[in-house]
């Protein structure tokens, strides 16, 4: 019987059917559900690694140890893992390795829109791209065989729209793949220059064999139709083409690196007008042009953003969708926000109030950049806040550092905030770092990490003590504070900024969505409210302003009674419902 599955679930199933016994990942939208789902199968090992580099190194070790291994990450995670990746291309594998790169065209939840097919070209890997959940399962299973056949990690490149779309899947039978024998082979696995030079020759031979393979790979297919238009496409855009140009001839590519030159030339020769339809970078198009083929692509379609059926219809058919029904007037936007009752909202409120320069980081806390909090000056990548604050200080001197803080979440700090903090100690910065410890990886849907003391399979684990670790690095001033206690929080922040030397403040309170402490919703006492709007300015969605009454109200369905507004209100107008 067929089942409905999101692409990510299908990838997990495909890996399971391929006999994978080890999987490692760091959570990141849109990849998170893959290893999360895989961890629920019987008889497998799965882990949340501290970051993507560690995940891939665990994958390398598991492969060396003879197991088939799945490693998954979002597109920018591959940047973190790029160091082991490029050299794993040289060492090759023992047990098959599939690296899933989940790209995010349209940046639904990402800081950039990079196209990781480029990694395939530069790291010299076979890159395979599915178009729906069934292919996600089938291609994943196939990719493990190919990884072992070609002695190389294989990249499965997917995008948000595939990861998070459901379609029907026929499950297959799980293969039992015996663990491969471990044999020491330093010439293959110790990448000294002398050995690596020899391995590079093998990599190039492999690329030749892969170029032969893709010409006849059953994963690619031609769908002949009207030969006046020929479309070369892959991934999700294939589905849009089938809607918009159902009559056209289509070369549907699964192997997007290396590209099948003969297959493409043959297809091109048999159609009148050739298009390449690919989201983001012109990876396929540029190769076709290098081969001297006359092809249309990015001169008509954007490099930026996610494609849609209406975009392709507009460009390829010249038909613009006219909405049958429209309303007059504008519709207020609905930006994402820190959740009502987010205990760490208080930190951004203070940083904004004190007009501090804030080097920010990735995660929910990036939302602190949005008004009315508006407390962020930069966000670059995982862990960047601390190095950024250090660099600003080195550029602007001690006075600058007295007005600058780095703000980073607990999971992000463990991911890549520790090494820059060592830099601060070693190179004697005055940086003030605030670790917002909500005891989870919240943005991606509450995954555990080394600081939570729980594994992906919900087993107990040693809990990383952030305070002890920060002290061990050499930070002498470490203060833990409950961010709901806003007066204490403000005092600590101002003291640590004034202090000459590095310091760390750990604001500890669980994410409001997982906090087991429940408090009753609060209420505004009408006769005490002086309409100063101080509570509205903290940007909590549990509060709203009624202009006609000049009064603040609290939505009892959303308020979780955290008490931040009680602390903010100078007129004691916010009280517990029971008091009213």
């Amino acid at each position, binding site marked *: 019987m*067929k089942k*409905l599955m*999101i692409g990510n679930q299908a990838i997990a199933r495909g890996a399971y059917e391929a006999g994978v016994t080890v999987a490692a990942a760091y959570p990141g*939208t*849109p990849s*998170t*559900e893959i290893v999360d789902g895989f961890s629920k199968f019987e008889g497998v090992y799965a882990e949340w690694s501290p970051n993507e580099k560690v995940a891939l190194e665990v994958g390398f070790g598991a492969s060396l140890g003879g197991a088939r291994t799945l490693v998954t990450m979002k597109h920018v995670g591959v940047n973190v893992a790029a160091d082991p990746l490029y050299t794993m291309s040289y060492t090759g594998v023992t047990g098959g390795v599939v690296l899933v790169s989940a790209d995010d065209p349209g940046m*639904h*939840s990402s800081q950039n829109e990079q196209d990781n097919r480029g990694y395939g070209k530069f790291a010299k890997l076979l890159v395979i791209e599915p178009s*729906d959940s069934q292919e996600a399962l089938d291609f994943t299973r196939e990719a493990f065989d190919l990884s072992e056949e070609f002695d190389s990690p294989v990249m499965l490149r997917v995008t948000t*729209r595939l990861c*998070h*779309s*459901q*379609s*029907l899947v026929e499950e297959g039978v799980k293969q039992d793949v015996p663990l491969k024998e471990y044999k020491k082979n330093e010439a293959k696995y110790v990448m000294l220059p002398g050995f690596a030079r020899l391995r590079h020759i093998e990599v190039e031979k492999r690329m030749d064999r892969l170029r032969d393979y893709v010409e006849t790979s059953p994963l690619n297919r031609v769908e002949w139709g009207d030969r006046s238009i020929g479309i070369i496409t892959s991934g*999700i855009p294939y*589905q*849009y083409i*089938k*809607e918009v140009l159902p009559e056209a001839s289509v070369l549907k590519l699964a192997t997007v690196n290396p590209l099948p030159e003969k297959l493409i030339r043959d297809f091109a020769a048999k159609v009148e007008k050739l298009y390449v339809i690919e989201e983001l970078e012109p990876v396929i198009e540029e190769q076709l042009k290098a081969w001297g083929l006359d092809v249309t692509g990015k001169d008509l379609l954007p490099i930026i953003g996610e494609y*849609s*059926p*209406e975009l392709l*219809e507009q460009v390829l058919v010249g038909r613009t*969708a006219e*909405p*049958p*029904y*429209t*309303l*007059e*007037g504008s*519709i*207020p*936007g*609905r*930006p*994402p*926000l*820190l*959740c*009502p009752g987010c205990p760490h909202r208080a930190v951004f409120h203070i940083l904004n109030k004190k007009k501090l320069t804030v080097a920010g980081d990735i995660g*929910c806390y990036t*939302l602190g950049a*949005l*008004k*009315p909090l508006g407390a962020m000056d930069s966000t670059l990548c995982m862990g960047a806040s601390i190095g950024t604050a250090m660099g600003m200080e080195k550029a602007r001197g001690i006075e600058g550092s007295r007005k600058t803080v780095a703000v980073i979440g607990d999971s992000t700090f463990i991911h890549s905030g520790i090494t820059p903090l060592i830099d601060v100690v070693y190179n004697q910065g005055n940086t003030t770092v605030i670790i917002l410890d909500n005891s989870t990886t919240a*943005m*991606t*849907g509450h995954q555990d990490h080394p600081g939570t003391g729980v594994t992906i399979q919900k087993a107990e684990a040693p809990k990383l003590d952030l305070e002890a670790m920060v002290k061990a690095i050499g930070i002498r001033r470490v203060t833990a504070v409950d961010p709901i206690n806003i007066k204490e929080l403000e005092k600590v922040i101002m003291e640590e900024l004034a202090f000459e030397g590095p310091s760390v403040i750990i604001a500890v309170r669980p994410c409001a969505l997982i906090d087991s402490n429940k408090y009753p919703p609060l209420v505004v006492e009408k006769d005490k409210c002086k309409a100063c*709007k101080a509570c*509205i*300015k903290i*940007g909590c*969605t549990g*509060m*709203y302003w009624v*202009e006609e009454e000049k009064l603040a109200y609290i939505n009892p*369905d959303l308020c979780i009674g955290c008490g931040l507004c009680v602390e903010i209100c100078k007129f004691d107008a916010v009280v517990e419902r029971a008091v009213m």
Partner: protein
Amino acid sequence: MSANTTNILIVGVGGQGTLLASRVLAQAAMDLGHDVKVSEIHGMAQRGGSVVSQVRYGPQVFSPIIKMGEADVIMAFEKLEAARYLSYLRKDGLIVINTESIDPLPVMSGADVYPENLEQKIAAVVPNTVIMDASGIAEECGNIKAANIVMVGRVGKALQMSKDSLAQAIKTLVPSKAIDINLRALDAGWDFMD
């Protein structure tokens, strides 16, 4: 898009249960032998932002997303979101609007105003508009959070889906302690008199 494909656009605010509604409709459509695709967006959308799920079913479905002006049905769990996505409704399509309003930040902070009588304004331009207090009906069924399933009942009936299939989907998709409330919500939506 194929005339044989049914397109349902489900819009609301993060936390209102658009994902569950789309999964129930998709599961029921699959049980009737249709090809099905569902598009969801996770991540940023969970933080009180505007959320969209899309369900498409028919003999063969390619794209997981619906083109502008091609939705047979829009299920709007919130009035402002109904207005925001109105351009996706096809001519003579059905829009079902829950009368709940959730102020977005620009409104809460007083920087913008929530448009008045949105549901009436939509009903004035869309002949096939159903306005229902799904949240109120859900509360009567035992939990306001079942408003999504009240709406599923109303839409399932309009699309001549099988109520048994919807009930079966609910039984497999919701936690066991919430099944009864959700089945009552399905009945209430199915029997709703416009």
